[in-house]
């Protein structure tokens, strides 16, 4: 490599590393703002602001979903297996919403410590399964219990 090319290589490498460093530091300082949602523990520990619009994420607790008979109102509990947050929502839930499913709810905490959701999104994981396999797995799980 000629000295001129070497110099250009060094300039290019410093551009790449320089921008990575800057962006890295910015992201590090904005860490909490980039997170899409607060976990149930974060809300329980008071890390999430009360009264402000936030998102809460977690698993829907088995057996906690209660639907009102006369409206679209539904209440359920959200957990990260350490703490639990009670959520109330009025509206249409996504197809993937079910007990044991990870979801993200947007809304705010009211003074009674209940999360008033205005939007519920289902979170999907990276596991895909044909229905037959899912059924055999479920049957096996039930047989083991």
């Amino acid at each position: 490599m000629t000295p001129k090319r070497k110099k250009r290589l060094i300039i290019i490498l410093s551009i790449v590393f320089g921008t990575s460093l800057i962006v890295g530091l910015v992201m590090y300082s904005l860490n909490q703002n980039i997170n899409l949602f607060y976990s149930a523990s974060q809300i329980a520990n008071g890390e999430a602001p009360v009264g402000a619009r936030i998102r809460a994420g977690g698993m829907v607790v088995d057996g906690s979903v209660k639907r009102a008979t006369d409206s679209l109102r539904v209440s359920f509990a959200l957990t990260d297996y350490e703490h639990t947050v009670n959520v109330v929502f009025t509206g249409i839930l996504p197809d993937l919403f079910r007990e044991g499913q990870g979801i993200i709810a947007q809304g705010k905490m009211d003074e009674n410590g209940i999360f008033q959701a205005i939007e519920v999104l289902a979170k999907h994981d990276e596991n895909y399964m044909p229905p037959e396999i899912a059924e055999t797995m479920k049957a096996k799980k039930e047989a083991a219990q």
Partner: protein
Amino acid sequence: MSFKFPQWFYRLASPRWFYEFSSKLLPWFIGAAIILLLTGTVWGLVFAPPDYQQGNSFRIIYVHVPASILAQSCYMLMAVAGAIGLIWKMKMAHIMAQSCAAFGASIAIISLATGAIWGKPTWGAWWVWDARLTSMLVLLFLYVGVIALRGAFENTQSGDKAAAVLSLVGLVNIPIIKYSVEWWNTLHQPATFTVTEKPAMPPEMWIPLLIMVLGFYCFFTVILMQRARLEVLQREMKTSWVQALIKSL
């Protein structure tokens, strides 16, 4: 430094040599792309089993995942080609980088659009400002920026240089896209395909996906070569070999 690259590396720098070499390779890649994409599409859309939760809407994975992988690979290729062009002043590298930009922008749009179409029934929202989706949108803007910046210069060489620097600056976005689902809480699920681990789905689901990814790469190679060949002819318009080629038509 007395380090020398093998001879073929220097030959790659010659637009004329590339033009002749690529015309021999093209039919193979066209054939492979057609076979792989047809097999993958039919297998993925018709024969692969539906997902136990999402049903048939999961099949969009067979377009979304290859498009997303390719959008990122294409960007890396563009940035590396730009760097080579800057350091060694290689015309061919800039031609390659230019050919990557437009394809990359289109494939990024496909990735975002298919993701949105899948997101509506699955998540319940077309768009969410989570880290993965946002960084992917930034990738699209980078592609558009690189195209616009190159076009803003009348002088081809200055345009090439500016576009290469911008694509190198934007390179930092690639690891952010890749690790966004691990570093932060996102709505988007973690990677479907990783080099180190087995995919979290049975073979009858991931084999057609793998075929589609390979098919997309072949398709990308075909488009890239075609665009680069056209660009070679345009940039080398005044040379004797292009003149002779045009006369022989």
